[in-house]
């Protein structure tokens, strides 16, 4: 059956809301000249509350989500989101706060932010944390802007940023926004930063290095201190993309290994749900000499009173309208307070064990080119199936038929036909075993019945969708037929 949009379920005159009557007897025409009033009324749905609920529940059932099944999307850390986190939705003292309330009416909110700033500083080994950025890439922007302002402030002439060829796409995109030329260095045979290649490009015009650690191959950059030393030798700054922080929790702190700026993804590492694409939660931690560049305000405490400190000497300014994604911070706060140090360590341990277990069980079926020092995720290759005309995309789509979400595919770019698999710590051995079983079956099907894969998925709400057609015949909004539009205009 063709899925209908909410617009097609609209019935003229039907309503889905209940508002009190306006007690003041006035008309809009009493206040405004008619020419500023809208001429063509928008076509918005006319549905009952039940219509709307049926509609959105019906389409929601077509989603894969963490409570339904395994979600091994590499680099995305799709761990289970504890339900206690959602207590935030029920507390009016959190959801019904206005950002411009007087400070003495928001002491609880400021305390949460203050303690989270401190806990994240402690976990990352940084001097201070700003919670204002609301996503990973947003944090990268703030971080790169700090790099830019640090050099500007010192009068350094810097034009380039270095990153490995395995970097997330947001890293070069963020650097470009700052006018930096991206210098990409090849990874070595272990999938790590090639120190010799780094030494060849290091020069006075290098502003910094963007490193993901563990990197996007899931491999720990064991020479991170050497890299930092090289970068620091030209007064460059070490930026760490914290997307993979899950692997380090309670064991290694960015601040102890030469990193100057690190970002957090609260929606990955700290168990806040991803909402189908957001809201996320960001945050950046910096070493002491960079605290004066953080976005304003940060939260301070004096005589048991919490307050906004806007007085940050060389602040890069604001990156968000207010203070960041507060409700996401509260979820991360709850999670951290429940885990404590031991709990964090257990997270890292189980993430690493689950990953190495999966890798061990799958490597004979799906070759894993980089295995040394693999931490929380690994990248397998589907290249050997090309001889059956089967691509990684086909493998991914077939996995959907087995009830699993697919891994991240075709990234990082340095592994051909990449399958990037991150199980996270919350998954059980039984889940991993059933995933392994499905993957092995798929590898057999690729050989015996490649058509099965090329036609996959077949058990999903819709078959494989034609992305090329979507671009060719762009359809990015519902087209109301003329009749509907005309009726609407007459209203």
């Amino acid at each position, binding site marked *: 059956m063709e899925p209908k949009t909410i617009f097609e379920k609209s019935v003229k005159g039907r309503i889905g809301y209940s508002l009190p009557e306006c007690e003041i007897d006035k008309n809009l025409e009493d206040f405004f000249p008619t020419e500023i009033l809208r001429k063509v009324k928008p076509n*918005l749905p006319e549905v009952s509350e039940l219509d709307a609920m049926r509609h959105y*529940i019906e389409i929601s059932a077509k*989603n894969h989500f963490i409570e339904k099944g395994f979600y091994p999307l590499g680099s995305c850390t799709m761990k289970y989101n504890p339900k206690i986190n959602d207590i935030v939705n029920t507390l009016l*003292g959190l959801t019904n706060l206005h950002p411009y309330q007087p400070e003495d009416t928001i002491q609880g909110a400021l305390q949460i932010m203050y303690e989270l700033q401190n806990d994240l500083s402690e976990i990352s080994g940084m001097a201070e944390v700003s919670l204002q950025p609301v996503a990973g890439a947003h944090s990268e922007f703030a971080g790169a802007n700090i790099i830019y302002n640090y050099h500007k402030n010192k009068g350094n002439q810097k034009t380039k940023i270095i990153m490995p060829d395995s970097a997330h796409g947001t890293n070069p995109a963020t650097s470009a926004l700052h006018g930096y030329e991206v210098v990409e260095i090849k990874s070595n045979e272990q999938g790590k930063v090639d120190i010799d290649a780094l030494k060849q490009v290091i020069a006075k015009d290098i502003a910094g290095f963007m490193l993901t650690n563990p990197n996007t191959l899931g491999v720990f950059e064991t020479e991170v201190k050497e890299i930092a030393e090289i970068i620091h030798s030209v007064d460059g700054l070490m930026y760490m993309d914290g997307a993979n922080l899950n692997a380090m929790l309670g064991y290694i702190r960015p601040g102890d290994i030469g990193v100057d700026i690190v970002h957090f993804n609260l929606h990955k590492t700290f168990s806040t749900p991803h909402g189908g694409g957001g809201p996320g939660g960001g945050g950046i931690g910096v070493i002491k000499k960079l605290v004066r560049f953080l976005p304003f305000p940060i939260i301070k405490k004096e005589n048991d009173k919490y307050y906004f400190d806007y007085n940050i000497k060389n602040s890069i300014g604001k990156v968000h309208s207010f203070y960041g994604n507060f409700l996401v911070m509260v979820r991360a706060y709850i999670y951290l*307070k429940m885990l404590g140090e031991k709990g964090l360590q257990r997270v890292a341990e189980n993430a690493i064990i689950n990953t190495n277990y999966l890798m061990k069980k799958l490597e004979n079926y799906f070759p894993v080119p980089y295995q040394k020092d693999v931490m929380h995720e690994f990248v397998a290759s589907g290249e050997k199936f090309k001889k059956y005309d089967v691509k990684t995309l086909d493998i991914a789509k077939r996995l959907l038929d087995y009830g699993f979400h697919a891994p991240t595919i075709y990234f990082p770019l340095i592994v051909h036909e990449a399958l990037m698999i991150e199980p996270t710590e919350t998954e059980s051995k039984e889940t991993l075993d059933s995933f392994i079983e499905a993957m092995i079956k798929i590898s057999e099907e690729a050989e015996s019945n490649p058509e099965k894969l090329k036609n996959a998925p077949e058990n*999903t709400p819709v078959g494989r969708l034609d992305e090329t057609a979507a671009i060719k015949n762009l359809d990015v909004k519902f087209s109301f037929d003329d009749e509907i539009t005309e009726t609407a205009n007459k209203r």
Partner: protein
Amino acid sequence: MPFISNTDEQREQMLKEIGVQNFEDLLRGIPKDLFIKENLNLSEPMSEMEIAKHITKLSEKNVNTNQFVSFLGAGIYDHFVPAAVNYIIGRPEFYSAYTPYQAEVSQGTLQFIYEFQTMLCELTGMDVANASMYDGATASAEAILLAIRHTHGKKILISSLIHPSYKEVIKTYISPLDIEIVYIPQKDGRTDIQELENQMDGSVSAVLIQTPNFLGCIEDMKSIDSIVHSNKRALFITAVDPISLALFSAPSEYNADIVIGEGQVLGNMQNFGGPLFGFFATKKNLIRKMPGRIVGATHDKEGQKGYVLTLQVREQHIRRDKATSNICTNESLCALAATVYIALMGKKGLYEVARQSTIKAHYLFEKICEIDGFSPANSSPFFKEFAVKTEEKPKNIIEEMKKKGFFAGVDLTPFGYKNQMLIAVTEKRTKAEMDEFVNVLNN
């Protein structure tokens, strides 16, 4: 240990199958000196019961806008949110899914985004809207960046009456670029059109006007349009309150090229200023230069309709340093709240929210201006928010009113408007609340 499924026994078993003795063996490639040497200074772990109590207590240290009568606005508004909105966004099918990378198992997310895009296009009159930005301020900055990429002009003109946070965020976003910002001063609560005309020249890449502006006033967009578009190069960017669009001219009616704004008013709680969401809509000719995700309709092999992320070649994960923006995660769930809100309120309801807010705001405005020591700050038409001049310092008024259970408004003094207060009224305020407010102010 909470939230970890494997037992110690299973751990041992898995380590054995990996082929190592213990967990530490998995880390043996990492130099010893990289590890933490001392214990972390974190508090002792709490049980679920303890943290629930703790967080509830902290929330009670705040005064929420349900306990007080609130007239706070300035970008975040206390509009009514129907229960059904929070019910839908609380469904794990939506909130614990990731970005819809695998379309065939993400049709729920993709379809609502398509509907969201349609609703935003209907409200703004634009041809295309994206799946959301972080907030109104970052959406305004991305719009400016788009204009600079598109026109290569070296100057942007920004009304001094846009939200102060937008100004701050734009400043941060364009700081690495060689671009001059000129702020157009205000005249009687609106952008000074004569000044705007004086500043227009061939180097202008964009003009950014907010309506209703920071002071709540409705700008003369028709006149501004004729000035902006007398210049062939410049793009006309407008920031709007989407609820106001149920009443006032659609941006397409005054030829806006890009329409952005803060979407919180559409079904989202105030959330202490976050999460919020920005919307971003443009005319067709700019679609390939837009930032953010866009969903398009397509079909499968059997011809069945479905939705996918489209035009991804603009985005960072494909184009890397040539991408139109670095954005990846957006504010999808907040956009879902807006979608469900608009579906429920519909054609009539959204109009009614806008109408009631306007009528109530004007009622309160007249009442307050009758009080000694209060007078209108300007004479321009306004929507649901207005500025008043006060004889007493606004800070003191706000402090006094707080003792009586009111959030009286936002002090405009720190924003450069000395002895002025910004007062917002939504459909949630009753006549009795407003009369009581005026009564207390009067004493």
